[in-house]
């Protein structure tokens, strides 16, 4: 079982709630994914559409909410969003996301460390989204991050884990759970991250924009389990030299 802070999770697939074509599709896809932890964002209420309330579609008994600070460009904005999330969501859990540059949506290491330290002191359970920077991961856990969330590739690119060597080092050194976030575009990407020893993965775009989000959610759920099981069972090493899978003896009669 995965433990983060004082909470345990059976599912190692975290779900995002953005980009779904409809609330109904989102509900069914999340159910199919088996996710227990789901992310949500904070935005101004659209007063022309008061009934459009995601909370009407998500059972808080079923899902553990992880509000994100998406949109924040620095620590100050992120902290403001964190406090709003705590007030409306009645939770101190937070996916800290600070992305100053809307072109790349890559996280800011300096502001992320600063905000993590302040928010932890203020009682938040902070899971920072971060570049796959092993030293930064060490510093984030030193200031009390409950987990680290290194990126596989830029948000929404579906390119998978382009940061393999960095993620491998982060996993090797981490004292807190490592959740690979962003860019996982196919179940095989999620499985590969889990095989490396990641504790969990977060997937949103690849499920939400799939031709069939419900089936894709199921596929990611299976792949995450497959990757975790393989990691626990122990993978064979890669080798350049071929080795027969059938016996090499007992063929004298052929020659």
């Amino acid at each position, binding site marked *: 079982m995965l433990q983060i802070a004082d909470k345990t999770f059976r599912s190692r697939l975290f779900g*995002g*709630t*953005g*980009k*779904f074509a409809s609330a109904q599709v*989102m509900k069914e896809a999340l159910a199919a994914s088996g996710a227990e932890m789901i*992310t*949500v*964002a*904070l*935005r*101004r*209420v659209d*007063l022309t559409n*008061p*009934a459009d*309330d*995601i*909370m*009407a579609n998500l059972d808080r008994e079923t899902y553990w*909410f992880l*509000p*994100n600070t*998406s949109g924040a460009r620095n620590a100050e904005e992120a902290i403001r969003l964190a*406090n*709003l*999330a705590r*007030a*409306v*969501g009645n939770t101190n859990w937070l996916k800290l996301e600070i992305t100053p540059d809307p072109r790349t949506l890559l996280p800011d290491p300096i502001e992320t460390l600063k905000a993590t330290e302040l928010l932890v002191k203020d009682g938040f359970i902070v899971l920072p989204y971060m570049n796959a920077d092993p030293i930064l991961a060490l510093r984030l856990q030193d200031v009390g991050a409950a987990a680290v969330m290194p990126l596989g590739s830029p*948000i929404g690119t579906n390119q998978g884990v382009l940061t393999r060597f960095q993620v491998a080092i982060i996993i090797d050194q981490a004292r807190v759970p490592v959740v690979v976030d962003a860019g996982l575009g196919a179940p095989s990407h999620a499985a590969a991250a889990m095989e490396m020893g990641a504790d969990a993965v*977060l997937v*949103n*775009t690849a499920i939400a924009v799939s031709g069939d989000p419900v089936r894709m959610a199921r596929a990611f759920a299976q792949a995450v389990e497959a990757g975790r099981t393989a990691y626990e069972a122990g993978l064979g090493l890669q080798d350049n030299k071929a080795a027969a899978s059938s016996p090499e003896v007992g063929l004298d009669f052929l020659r």
Partner: protein
Amino acid sequence: MKIICNGTEYEVGQGTTLLHFLAQLQLDPDTVVVECDEKIIPRQAYEALVLAPGQNLELIRFVGGG
């Protein structure tokens, strides 16, 4: 009297409470957080808070995100 809500000017009656205002907007007070002049208003204060002219409200809620 006039207040600003989510960037738009609204005309509200004297003595309107925040809870009442949210009801007028057909919003569920339990899923909306309110900043009044950049200060977060605790849920339990919605009923007591009487809106005053020129106040700047921000109504924020959870939406889908990754």
